[in-house]
């Protein structure tokens, strides 16, 4: 089926969507359905694999091939599928618990191997499906069902973790900014390698407002910074603030204080060192002098994909030895005959 003629509707299924009303997952689903007709992949070649969690219900609502698998293992299943069927467009849907707790190991390993798949991490900083325990991205001191005295766990910084695992594409977006989310989904798809897209997702039942400060009109301009390739790091209601780089440290400056845009840090997605600094702009928005939270593509680099090298080795082996011959294999080197 030619994809150009399809619309978002062609990617929805007859299954009743079972997320809580108001859940951020709805918006993410809508944006994925919107971009799918335009990515240039025949519908039958798109596969969505998820783990377990509210977010991992996703495949049931997408009219493509899909597997709702087991908790934490979507990345590993996707690895086997992509490695053996490189022509498929493989998307992984996972939650913060799914990908960073139970599936943490598989997450770092898929990143270092760099299979050409797209990871959409629905981060709501809570375990939604199991009804509200803290997650590995929940902030310290958080009161949840399992932490009535406050969480004593130090949270993960997902993007810093992904970069630390040598992820080749690192980006962040949010459920409440459809345009930006669509753009990031498209970029994820275009990247040849493992794309790691963290999506801030509101769980209005168990962790309502976790990202409010970044998503609400009132605070968004001052609390977020949208990264654009080749552009200076400017933010603020009046576009009056910026980030300068001072040695190895980012500094927030006021453009009315004698700084011009030329003094600011120019975003370069290909700069690994700058990407490290950007992922570390992760302090709590509730402390004095904190950084705005970056959104956009932090880092992109091209390096060989696992499945391509795997195939190359097979082709090289065939070129060198010829296609495997079963009779030769069974016969081996030394035989004897009994008459």
């Amino acid at each position: 089926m030619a994809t150009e003629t399809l619309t978002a509707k062609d990617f929805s299924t007859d299954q009743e969507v079972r997320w809580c009303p108001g859940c951020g997952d709805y918006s993410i689903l809508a944006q994925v359905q919107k971009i799918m007709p335009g990515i240039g992949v025949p519908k039958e070649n798109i596969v969505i694999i998820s783990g377990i969690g509210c977010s991992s219900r996703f495949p049931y609502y997408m009219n493509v091939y899909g597997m709702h698998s087991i908790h934490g293992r979507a990345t590993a299943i996707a690895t086997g599928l992509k490695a053996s069927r490189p022509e498929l467009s493989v998307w992984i849907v996972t939650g913060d618990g799914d990908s960073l707790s139970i599936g943490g190991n598989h997450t770092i390993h898929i990143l270092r191997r760099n299979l050409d798949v797209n990871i959409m991490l629905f981060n709501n900083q809570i375990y939604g499906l199991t009804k509200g325990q803290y997650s590995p991205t929940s902030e310290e001191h958080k009161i949840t069902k399992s932490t009535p005295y406050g969480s004593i766990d130090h949270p993960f910084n997902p993007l810093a973790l992904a970069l630390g695992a040598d992820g080749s594409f690192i980006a962040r977006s949010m459920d409440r900014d459809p345009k930006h989310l669509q753009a990031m989904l498209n970029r994820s798809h275009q990247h040849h390698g493992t794309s790691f897209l963290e999506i801030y997702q509101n769980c209005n039942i168990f962790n309502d407002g976790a990202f409010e400060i970044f998503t609400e009109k009132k605070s968004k301009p001052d609390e977020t910074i949208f990264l654009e390739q080749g552009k200076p790091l400017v933010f603020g209601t009046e576009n009056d603030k910026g980030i300068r780089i001072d040695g190895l440290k980012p500094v927030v400056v006021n453009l009315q204080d004698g700084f011009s845009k030329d003094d600011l840090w120019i975003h370069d997605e290909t700069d690994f060192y700058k990407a490290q600094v950007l992922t570390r702009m992760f302090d709590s928005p509730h402390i004095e002098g904190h950084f705005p939270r970056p959104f956009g593509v932090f880092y992109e680099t091209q390096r060989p994909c696992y499945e391509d090298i795997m195939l190359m080795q097979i082709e090289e082996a065939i070129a060198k030895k010829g296609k495997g011959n079963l009779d030769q294999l069974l016969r081996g080197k030394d035989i004897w005959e009994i008459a």
Partner: protein
Amino acid sequence: MNTDETILKDVVIKFAGDSGDGMQFTGSQFTENTALMGIDLATFPDFPAEIRAPLGTVPGVSGFQLRFSSDPVYTPGDLCDVLVAMNAAALKVNLRGLKFGAKIIANKDGFDAKNLRLAKYADGVNPLEDGSLDGYEVIEMDVTRMTREALKEFSTLGTKEKDRAKNMFVLGFLYWMYNRKLENTIKFIQQKFKNKTDILESNLAVLKAGYHYGDTTETFTSRYKVEKAKLPPGKYRSIMGNQALVYGLIAASQKSGLPLFLGTYPITPASDILHELSKNKSFGIRTFQAEDEIAGISAAIGASYGGNLGVTSTSGPGLALKSEALGLAVMLEIPLIVIDVQRGGPSTGLPTKTEQSDLLQAYYGRNGECPLPVIASSTPSDCFYAVFEAVRIAVQHMTPVIFLSDGYIANGAEPWRFPQTDDLPEIEVHFQKKLPEGSDQFLPYLRDDKLVRNWVVPGTPGLEHRIGGLEKEDITGNVSYDTNNHQHMVKTRQAKVDYIAQSIPLQKLDSGPEKGKVLVLGWGSTYGAIKSASLDLQSEGHAVSHAHLRYLRPFPSNLGEILKNFDHVLIPEINNGQLIKIIRDQFLIDAHGYHKIMGIPITRTELVDEIRKWL
């Protein structure tokens, strides 16, 4: 000088020394040489779990037992005729495994004060001197000294490197003693050390020195010969269990047209499956060394979902990790081969020792009602055919299959009359490519008369659908929490596996009368011991029969009938009683068990004694 040649029927040799002494290498070279002579054989390598256990100590002893005979061989032998003991510890460990009067070839240098102390002999005691070996034929050889002597011209090699060739001296001597040619080993050494001339030359020199030592010393007046075995005519090679298993997988991949994908994590004694498959990329094989066993099976599931032959290989601890994903494969109803090369358990247990440890785990070790077929191989070469059959069942019945081997089979070797590709059956695979005539909705869980659903892989236009681990609605495959549907689906998945009994051969007796006093029922690596014990007792005129199960779940449909034909059913196992539980449960018979849980195979002799109790 004159030497007599004595014709022997059957010889059991044990090569034993430090794990650094190269006993596994010596044993396998002698095995290869024996096989090429057309003599029947069976081997039992037995090595410590540590790569370099403390030198000279009892736990550090590595052994390789080989039995060869002009008669058919089913086991590596209960007791040895010849022991090669490279040091005192090797003698200490193996003495009780010797026949009275056996030859002991002792490396004198390995019995010095230090080695005796390390082997924990009492102060001043040397078994070579204190008369404790009276009744054995002890041949003392100063292997170290003679090896160094043979290498005195090799100035580039240090003493340590020279001493490493000691095992070649012993091998050369044994080749002389059993009237063998050196060619296969010379060829092997030339290949192995082709880039290290001095090592190559020194090994050859010592091998030949060992051979000539037999020739020139006055001490040895007889040489031995074992005639060719009377095996069925044909072309033979020597094969090890894990190797046969890999060839079986490759053959099944070729015969089904499904590309093979292995997702796995290294673990003894299964790792050689990964090594061997990785070598054979020219068959289009993809091997994936995952971050853990869960990722291994998950990747294999992903590959199967994509239309490959997904395989994962492991041992007991790894199978435990794979349980949840196996449940997913049962729900998805896709083909998958899960290989468990069993070892002593529980936990890390005895990594290098054999045990039939995981039958119950394979049967029941998952959450929920989670039936799947279980198949076991019984000898090294049987792995080839049994795994081929496992693949057939997996793809034709759309189900994961657990394949059980064990350490003893995996590392054991035997002659194999290998098949030709054309003799192997095709494995028919069907992918659904489009909607059936007149229907406008794809129904992923629609079943055929064998209760099997269709395999539809991503990339097939118009059949996009979703599957997963949540309970499925019958036929549509939609998520369903309906109470009646769950009951129906649980029963259906069970019936689907039960139905496989119709596509497998009826159980046959391996030997013995159809009806009689005792049926010895076995599975897996006890095959050889049960076979020899049964044949022995039959030749004494006893009504003993032997049946050996390849299909453990479901059982062949006539198994119940067979069991009824005997007064007693004896089930020997290398575990604390696993098959016996299942047999008692399914057939309500008072089967007797015999359980040896020592990390070593059951012997023919002990089995004969055990069977006699029921005659």
